[in-house]
């Protein structure tokens, strides 16, 4: 498998849009053609060659050597193949992606995987606010695919998320699952304060909650079969990176009763 590598020449000083650097958009381009691609829509933005040293041949894999919180839209629209980033990335990584894999060696900024429909994102650091969230103008946030965060997650993860799975080894910030319509958020470390405001459907899974909204109803301990299906599914998708299988029984908190209340927080500890 040939890899096309982009090595940062120096730390960027302005926000750059890297959505052009996905395998399907680079296929068939010469190195010169790739270097002339603009990094954004503004007429004054730098071109790829101004920021990166390009090496290798276009194929299924793209590697970004280096990293910066100013690198936005990494892997946005990715449909197949892989993108590996050595360091951190900025906002909107994996936005609207439909397939393939993105691996981020450092932290990811806000709106990771917003409107993503498929594929897999692995963040080895932490993720910013609105992970899988809808930004203004979007009807929904994440629509499919799987996100794995080794570190912690910022506030309001899963904002209006509809489908897909987010797994975090670390803790979610405040108001995770805000206005969520579907899809599990799963943490091995717990949720920050007040998860699930206006949660319609969907499942928040974790060992603890810092502070519970009063609009979640305690349904007691339950042992639903879906936990087994979820554990097996995530083990299939993530392999050795998968979290420990869920316990047979969990405590269910149903909400948000301020809306239709078909969502749930499942406490595993």
């Amino acid at each position, binding site marked *: 498998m040939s890899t096309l590598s982009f090595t940062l020449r120096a730390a960027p000083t302005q926000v750059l849009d890297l959505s052009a650097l996905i395998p399907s958009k680079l296929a068939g381009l010469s190195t010169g053609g790739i270097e002339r691609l603009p990094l954004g829509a503004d007429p004054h933005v730098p071109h790829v060659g101004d920021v990166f040293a390009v090496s290798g041949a276009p194929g299924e894999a793209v590697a970004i050597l280096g990293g910066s919180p100013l690198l936005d839209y990494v892997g946005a629209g990715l449909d197949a193949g892989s993108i590996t980033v050595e360091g951190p990335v900025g906002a909107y990584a994996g936005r609207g992606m439909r397939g393939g894999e993105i691996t981020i060696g450092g932290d990811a900024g806000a709106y990771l995987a917003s409107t993503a429909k498929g594929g897999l994102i692995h963040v080895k650091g932490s993720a910013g606010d609105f992970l899988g969230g809808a930004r203004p103008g979007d009807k929904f946030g994440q629509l*499919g695919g799987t996100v794995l965060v080794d570190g912690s997650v910022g506030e309001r993860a899963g904002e209006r998320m509809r*489908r897909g*799975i987010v797994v975090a080894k670390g803790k979610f910030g405040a108001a995770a699952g805000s206005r969520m319509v*579907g899809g*599990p958020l799963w943490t091995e470390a717990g949720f920050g304060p007040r998860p699930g405001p206006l949660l319609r*459907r969907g*499942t928040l899974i974790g060992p603890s909650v810092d502070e519970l909204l009063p609009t979640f109803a305690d349904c007691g301990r*339950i*042992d*639903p*079969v*879906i936990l*087994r*299906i*979820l*554990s*097996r*599914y995530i083990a299939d*998708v993530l392999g050795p990176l998968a979290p420990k299988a869920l316990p047979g029984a969990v405590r269910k908190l149903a909400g948000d009763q301020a809306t239709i209340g*078909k969502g749930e927080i499942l406490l595993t500890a």
Partner: protein
Amino acid sequence: MSATTINGVVIDDTFAEAFGMSGLGLVITADTLKWARISAEVMTGFGTSVIGCGAECGIDRELKPDETPDGRPGVRVLIFGFSPDALKPQLVNRVGQCVLTSPGSACYNGLDSPTTLALAAGPRFFGDGWQTAKKLGKRRFWRVPVMDGEFVIEDTCGVTTDAVGGGNLLVLGRDRAGLLEATEAAVDAIAKIDDVITPFPGGIVRSGSKVGSKYKGAIASTNDAFCPTLKGAVKTECSPDTIAVLEIVIDGLTSKSVADAMRVGLKTLIETGAAKGVTRVSAGNYGGKLGQHHYYLKDLLP
């Protein structure tokens, strides 16, 4: 018609005539294999012949926990009907009445196919609005609250129109008890073949039929040529020493699976039949004009 004799069992030079059908597979799991089997046996009950039962159903095989979506023991059942449309009410009724109701059960697709039927279309509404769905990858699972927790049912199940119904073996014997034992052994061997079922009671049918009847309205009637009590009165297919004839009917998701099942059934009868009083093995057909699939016994010999 020249027959072959192997190990003292005569193998008629004839063929089984079978029909194209639609088939689907489901995986039923429960807390224990016992309860998965109970659910599967009840939901495949009254599923012997598509003519009178609406579908032909049976258990294909037991599944180990690592073979099921939820990691619990399970059973794969197969359901055959004339067409995908004809299978729809069967799915709703059988799953709704026999799987949904069974303690601890869950019901999943058991056949990968590009064509699908709505599996949860009926049962999920039992949730009265409390049902929720979880889509994992390409599969959507409905969770229906019930009194022992949640009934999980997959949204759709695969259906194939390449299935075959009516593969068969006719086993003739001169000893009733021995004939039954030998035929049971053949059914047990067939059970080890994947993608097939033997839908009749215990896999064996004693009332083989012919097309038509002297009575108006009856589309099938007793296969008098194979009735030993009529062998002096009609143009008989029985041998002079035939005391009973038993038939194994086989439905499969593919023509190959039906042929494989007939092959192992025939092998078992040849290897163990003579000692049990099996004298001949034949097959049922309608002259070859009705069914698309013809399985010649001579091609299936071990």
